[in-house]
């Protein structure tokens, strides 16, 4: 009996030791980076999306705040895109919730607001009118829901821009298109010149989405999508959707994107390379594409071959040609349960408009959504491009957030899926409308 008991003890003890040692090595490895635990009223947690260029700038801004402010300290935790969305959902409302969290505004933020987890920042802005005035109104509106403000812009503006390869266009005798009909004509000319007219990274539907977003806006104006999003006045069956999708179908069938786009990625061997290598004429992409090209194909950019233009107008369409789509900006929002509210509000009202922070963002190629930075942009590198982006956003009558961020996650997933089927020709314009409006 004693020996039996001994072995029992032995076996369980060895298990314990083993588990403990594993636990030790497990926790020493990751150094607890993503782990929350902001709720203790100690160091506040700021969560943001991973970005090799921008994270150090945000980190520095938080450090400066920690040094200057008496109210409390913050630390930054960063996440990749998909993990960020997953992690934030499960953490919000739990003791592991961050105090300030990064978001895209719009419907993405709305889910959290509806769940009662986001602090209303309108009082803060009312108390500090100069803070409200510091941001471009069209951008600040990106985090506004039912007239209340739930977030302040913290990164640059990223409208979607029509990029082109100048020498390819010149060789084919194509002018930069100003209207949709110009674009269709350009497609025919580029095809005749044996290049893919438009590079499209079609293995991910968000690249295709940019075309649908702009077309619907140009055809029906921003209200059409806003109706869909809010689910009040009308859904995908509004006639403008069908009209826009029919025009897009025409572009696809005409061979505007070539025949191989379905397996082209934005990452490996992707659409950017095709444009830079002179195998395509146009590429519709977010404004970050400039920095991307500069990094990946510096020769192409430095030779002055990379051009950019606003999305063409649609003759007779409702939407103003100045309207933009894309990432309006990114926002910091404050969680309703935060135990560091005072410090967080102080951070929001000082750190985001801090001169050093803005300068750092500009130096990194970002275009901050802050009033009066045009002169600074002119003095910085690549001013030709950054002032273009700035002017576009300042002049835009409307700046629509990307649909996949503005819709709720489940609707967005369904919409992207239908869109990729549409681009493959497996869904007609009417089929697209029907599939989404049920």
């Amino acid at each position: 009996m004693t020996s039996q008991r001994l072995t029992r003890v032995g076996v369980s003890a060895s298990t314990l030791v083993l588990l403990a040692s594993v636990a030790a090595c497990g926790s020493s490895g990751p150094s607890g980076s993503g782990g929350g635990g902001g709720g203790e009223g100690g160091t506040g947690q700021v969560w943001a999306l991973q970005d090799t260029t921008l994270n150090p700038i945000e980190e520095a801004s938080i450090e400066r705040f920690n040094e200057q402010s008496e109210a409390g300290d913050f630390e930054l935790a960063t996440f990749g895109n998909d993990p960020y969305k997953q992690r934030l959902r499960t953490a919000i409302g739990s003791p592991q919730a961050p105090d300030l969290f990064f978001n895209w505004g719009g419907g993405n933020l709305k889910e959290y607001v509806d769940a009662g987890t986001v602090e209303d920042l309108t009082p803060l802005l009312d108390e500090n009118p100069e803070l409200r005035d510091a941001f471009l109104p069209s951008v600040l509106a990106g985090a506004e829901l039912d007239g209340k403000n739930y977030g302040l812009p913290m990164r640059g503006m990223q409208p979607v821009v029509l990029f082109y390869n100048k020498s390819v266009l010149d060789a084919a005798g194509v002018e930069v298109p100003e209207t949709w009909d110009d674009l269709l004509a350009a497609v025919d000319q580029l095809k005749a010149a044996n290049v893919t007219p438009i590079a499209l990274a079609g293995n991910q539907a968000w690249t295709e989405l940019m075309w649908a977003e702009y077309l619907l806006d140009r055809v029906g104006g921003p209200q059409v999508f806003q109706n869909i999003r809010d689910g009040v006045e009308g859904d995908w069956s509004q006639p403008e959707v069908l009209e826009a999708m029919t025009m897009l179908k025409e572009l696809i069938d005409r061979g505007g994107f070539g025949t191989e786009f379905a397996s082209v990625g934005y990452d490996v061997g992707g659409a950017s390379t095709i444009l830079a290598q002179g195998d395509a004429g146009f590429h519709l992409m977010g404004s970050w594409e400039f920095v991307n090209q500069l990094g990946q194909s510096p020769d192409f950019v430095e030779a002055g071959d990379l051009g950019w233009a606003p999305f063409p107008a649609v003759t007779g369409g409702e939407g103003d040609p100045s309207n933009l789509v894309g990432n309006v900006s990114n926002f910091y929002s404050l969680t309703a349960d935060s135990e560091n509210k005072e410090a967080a509000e102080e951070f929001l009202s000082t750190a985001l408009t801090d001169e050093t922070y803005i300068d750092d963002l500009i130096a990194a190629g970002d275009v901050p959504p802050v009033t009066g930075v045009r002169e600074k942009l002119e003095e910085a590198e690549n001013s030709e491009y950054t002032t273009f982006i700035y002017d576009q956003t300042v002049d835009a009558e409307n700046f629509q957030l990307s649909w996949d961020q503005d819709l709720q996650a489940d609707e967005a997933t369904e919409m992207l899926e239908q869109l990729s089927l549409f681009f493959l020709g497996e869904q007609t314009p009417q089929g697209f409308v029907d599939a989404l409006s049920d």
Partner: protein
Amino acid sequence: MTVAQTATLPEAPTGATAAPPVRRRRGGSTSGRRERPNWLAGVLATCWLVIVAVPLYYLVAASFRTRQDYLSTSPLKPPTDPTIDNYVTVFEGGFLTYLTNNVIVTVATVAIVVAVTVPAAYAVARNAGPLVQRFFSIMLIGLAIPAQATIIPVYLLITQLRLYDTLLAIILPTAAFALPVALLVMTNSLRDIPKELYEAQTLDGAGPFGVLRNLVLPLAKPAITTISVFTALNAWNGFLFPLVLTQSESTRVLTLGLWDFQGQFGTNVPGLLAAVTLSVVPIFVLYLVGRRYLLSGLTAGFGK
């Protein structure tokens, strides 16, 4: 290549999993049976060889090319001006961190599996009690449970245990899902020990723990090697658990690192291929050193 031979013996088909990498019958009974060459199989084998070799050649060759060289000429061309820049970039991109994480995950997973499996298999092999046998049956059902199907509850469990984004979050479920196969292999191996040996130990006055230490552990060494290799390969190559249960750079393992390199390098295909090549190197070294053990572990694990 004698590892899985018992798999085909009609009387004990599952014995395959228990077969230790024994060295026997090299150049044995089948030699000399071939009189004329088997053309069909030979042609097929050659075709397959080309299919296997070309991508691997491309992988290594292209990883030594500059991006511009790669984009402007045929991908199959040998590098005109070989460069190791891609490898430098990969090392600067956190490769060593990922490698270290992979090693920690693999070693810890193997340690758990071996430490937990050996006593359990001993109990199953030598204790006919209904409790133990029922446990064994349940574990066998676990054999074909696809780990993918439990990823959502595992995610919930790991976040509730506050283990999200730690290496432990990868280690624990990986080890748990390696247990059924390991237990099956180990149990079969322990059952192959003649019961006279157990009885002799008992007659000498050894308790169960003594038997475990003096008899079972030494005789189970080949099986322990097999399950270690099998578990290690699973842990080394695991993708889904790291994908869902970790996120930051400090906890990133190699497989996930590769995926991330793809985004990080943007359109730099040679850089990505250099990362892929580097990720194969540790296993390749293992293959050169202990090919027999590696292959035995693979077959034991049903190649999951």
